[in-house]
């Protein structure tokens, strides 16, 4: 398992901003492993969908005290 290339802390941001920031990062680095932290209810599903549309995959999703941690990967 490769290391996290970048952590995006999108906590406190309303949808669609977590998606937009994650999208921007995916475009910027091209491939790798990104961690996204969000506390916006709709964002996990939307971030996962945006990642899939860009050829990335959602590796894991976990929730702790209202914060969802998503790990996205593209090799």
């Amino acid at each position, binding site marked *: 398992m490769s290391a996290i290339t970048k952590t995006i802390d999108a906590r406190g941001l309303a*949808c*669609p*901003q977590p*998606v*937009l920031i994650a*999208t*921007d990062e995916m475009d910027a680095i091209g491939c790798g492993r990104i961690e996204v932290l969000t506390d916006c209810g*709709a964002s996990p*599903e*939307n971030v996962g*969908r*945006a990642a*899939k*549309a*860009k050829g990335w995959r959602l590796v894991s999703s976990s929730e702790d005290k209202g914060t969802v941690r998503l790990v996205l990967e593209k090799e």
Partner: protein
Amino acid sequence: MRLPFGWGDKAPRSTQKPVAGAGHDKGVMAFAHTAEVIRAEAALRGGGLEVRVMGPPPEMRTGCDMVVEFELMREPQARRLLAQANLAPVAVAPVRAGMLEPVSLFQTKDFGPWLMVRAANMKLTVDKASRVIVNISGGGCPDVPALAELLVGQTLDAAPAPLSRGQTLCAYALELAFREAQRQLPERPRGRP
């Protein structure tokens, strides 16, 4: 003053007198249910009328949060088309002085490289340069996830019209947002920046 269709029972009469020449070219129709607004818009457009779905002026709120704006001079044609579709508005009135204008259903927010268009309860966000749909959110209807799956990652030209794939009010709101995004971000002719 006798209104073209007359007000419906639920809509109060305006206490303001109309001003000659002010805003008499447009009228608005209210319907009992949003589903009827959708059918009315389709029937009127199908008959060649230019109509817009808008938020109702405060005086005309009848329970449905959308009205159809039309050209008042086309009233007889609109009446025929609606009758053919078995539709009857609960209230119809000219947009005149003293009545607040119908309000746009759309809200747009500029996020720099992205534009978000909101129509009613649905939000659609597009990359302005590529015109690719990057996010769809809102709703709560069962077909929203499937619609989002279909549209996200597609350009505004390649994506299917939401109402061609969904049947709910969310699909309709998304359709309106989709059309508005297409209007605000028209395709540029090739070879031009």
